[in-house]
């Protein structure tokens, strides 16, 4: 196996590389769920649904209200959630998002479907503004909320250690532990005679300094031990997210490739007018596509706000929305596997940038990569690159 610890190129720390790749992959999986909605709508309508981020935002509100109904709200009595709680929240988020997607398509996009699609783009921007700022007035006064972390019983990690810590260092650190304990005990015994933990008499201060010194010595050894190891943490919450994403994608693939509705969707995506001549009900297919895409966004929203404790407010959909849109384009918009590939590439790229020490330019470099890819593959990674004929 490659020795990651001794590898040292340009000051990069290769021991964290595997972890960062895992981080990127898991992050990409979330982007993918939202990106799928963009790409499916684009596939059938050739329309960038800029209100998709707001559908996502409504989904997270749905999940939050569901958790409140189960007693996790402000002043609620529930103590700990289980997988049933999470499932109910997921269903609620999908329901809210799905309905929002249906309503938006029916009343804002369908009436102007026969006009240039830039008009739909403006209604999309208008709707997105309306939901954001209208939400500020009507949705809990637009206060910043968060789903309490109590609902999530799966907050610990699986830890893998491909390379163990240096045993000698660990032993040395452990050997210091009794001394630390003793110093702590001495200080604790002194504490009742002090005004507070932070306003100490000279005697207390002396004990405190001694404690600090020995603790620092132990921590330094522990630190060396940790640095010598290579560990990969897989947060359980994220694994659930990944599994759900994969399940939903398999479901989506089955739906698109194996069912009548899926065939209709593909037909509409190939040729809008011809498919309607072949007896496909365009309205149904487009409504269905919108609902499907929105439901996926709702699922993403619930997992985002539960497992990552993402803050919820009327503007919280913009961020994932834009990222997912970029991912969808990167993969080749309108192409379902492309959205997944693009999203995962985005996630990994962002984490690699952070790993290399440029976290302040994380987004900028992600966009640079996107532009570079598009320059070589103008139709996106998996998109078709056909030249229009006259």
């Amino acid at each position, binding site marked *: 196996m490659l020795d990651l610890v001794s590898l040292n190129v340009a000051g990069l720390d290769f021991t964290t590389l595997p972890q960062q790749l895992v981080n990127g992959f898991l992050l990409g999986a979330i982007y993918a769920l939202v990106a799928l909605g963009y790409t499916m709508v684009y596939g059938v309508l050739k329309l960038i649904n800029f209100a998709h981020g707001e559908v996502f935002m409504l989904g997270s509100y749905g999940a939050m209200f569901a958790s409140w109904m189960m007693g996790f709200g402000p002043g609620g009595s529930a103590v700990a959630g289980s997988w049933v709680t999470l499932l109910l929240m997921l269903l609620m988020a999908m329901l809210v998002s799905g309905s929002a997607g249906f309503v938006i398509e029916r009343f804002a996009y369908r009436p102007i479907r026969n006009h240039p699609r830039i008009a*739909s783009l403006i*209604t999309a921007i208008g709707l997105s503004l309306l939901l954001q*700022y209208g939400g*500020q007035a009507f949705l809990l006064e637009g206060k910043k909320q968060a789903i309490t972390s109590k609902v999530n019983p799966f907050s610990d990690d699986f830890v893998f250690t491909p390379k163990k810590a240096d045993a000698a260092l660990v032993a040395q650190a452990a050997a210091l532990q009794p001394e630390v304990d003793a110093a702590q005990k001495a200080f604790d015994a002194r504490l009742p005679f002090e005004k507070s933990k932070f306003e100490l008499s000279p005697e207390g201060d002396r004990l405190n300094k001694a404690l600090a010194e020995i603790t620092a010595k132990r921590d330094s050894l522990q630190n060396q031990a940790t640095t010598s190891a290579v560990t990969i943490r897989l947060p359980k919450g994220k694994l659930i997210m990944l599994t759900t994403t994969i399940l939903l994608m398999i479901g989506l693939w089955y739906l698109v490739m194996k069912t009548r509705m899926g065939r209709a969707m593909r037909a509409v995506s190939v040729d809008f007018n011809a498919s309607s001549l072949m007896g496909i009900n365009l309205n149904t297919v487009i409504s269905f596509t919108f609902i499907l895409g929105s439901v996926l966004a709702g699922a993403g929203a619930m997992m985002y706000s539960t497992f990552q404790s993402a803050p919820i407010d009327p503007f919280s959909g913009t961020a994932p929305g*834009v990222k997912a849109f*970029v991912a969808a384009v990167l993969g080749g918009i309108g192409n379902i596997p492309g959205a997944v590939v693009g999203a995962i590439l985005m996630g990994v790229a962002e984490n690699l940038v952070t790993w290399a020490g440029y976290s302040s330019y994380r987004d*900028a470099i992600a966009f640079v990569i996107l*532009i570079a890819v598009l320059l070589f593959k103008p139709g996106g990674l998996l998109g078709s690159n056909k030249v229009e004929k006259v």
Partner: protein
Amino acid sequence: MQFNFGKWFGTRAISVIVAVLFCLLLDKVMQGPDKSYYRFLMSLAGIYVTLAVSLNLINGITGQFSIGHAAFYQIGAYTGAVLAANKFSHLAATKPLLWLFLAALFGAIAAGLAGLIVGLPSLRLKGDYLAVVTLGIGEIVTIIAKNQKSLGEAYGLSTAKIESVFLISLLAIVCIAVCRNLLKSAHGLAFLAVREDEVASAAMGVNLTRVKVTAFVLGSAFAGAAGALYAHTKAFVSPPDFSMDVSFLILTMVVLGGTGSITGTTIAAVVLFLIPEKMRDLPYVQMGTPLGVAIGIIVAVVLLRKIQESFHGSASERLGRNLGSVGIGIVVAFVMAKVLVMVPAFQSMINGALFRMPVLAVTLVVLMLLRPQGIFGHHEFSWSWVQKLLGKKSPETEVAA
């Protein structure tokens, strides 16, 4: 056609002099400390007109889908601000107007260069792919500004304060004139051809590269000049002034006015900018009132659309029905507002300021639903068009763009 140079130059000279005099007059009217609010409004309106018309050149006329126009605006603004704060602080203090003119020039050059860099890859990209690249450029520029100590990071940068309604309105007029004259020239037809069909126009001998890059560079340069003027009007530039929202707002102005129509874009820019501003005086209302109004709007829009789709009577009859629908909408809004505020759940008071942006959003959606081609469609303002509206037959119907 006979070319009469004297007449041609005469009209040109007169229109230029009229434009300059108009700007000077505007400047004079807006002087004085008590008018600073209106002066700033006027300046911003002029800047937004420049931005919208310059994006229209890229987006509406040449058909290159750019949603990152704020990037060039920002480059111009920071160029002006940084130069005035460092290299040219003396000039900015002693000869403010001359410096402002130079700042606009420097801003235009910097943004134009950036436009060149973005324009080149745009040759390979189409539609939404280009859109994402321009969006990305916008983000990259903002992120760089947020990370540079010398650019004031996320806080921003102070610079010399030079207000000049004269230069701002002149810039807007120059921008409009350049776009209009370009459209009237043989080159302009090439731009339109590229919008309609790239492959066909290339086959007809249009130099795609030159057209696209010219559009990008020219559009970006105007945005850059507007940025430099903006920086000095506010005496401060900061990253949030150039966020994605601003790009979207400019794009909205272009589409709402009628893609490709300079007149429409100009009017939409002023209207869209003024809507949230005029809404500042909204009072505190009970929650039921805006909900009632929303229901009224929905009813009116549904009725109007029904008339649009299925009514085939005379023009006056149609107008009557349209007015009737609006009336019904108003009545419904009024009644619903009264009824809803009786429900205890809808009685809480909401600050009217919260409805500034929703009103803008509703305007966008409603206008797009009722007139998807934009206020002016592809039409332009022209005297023969006015004559036609007044019922006179005009010798030539002028439908540009």
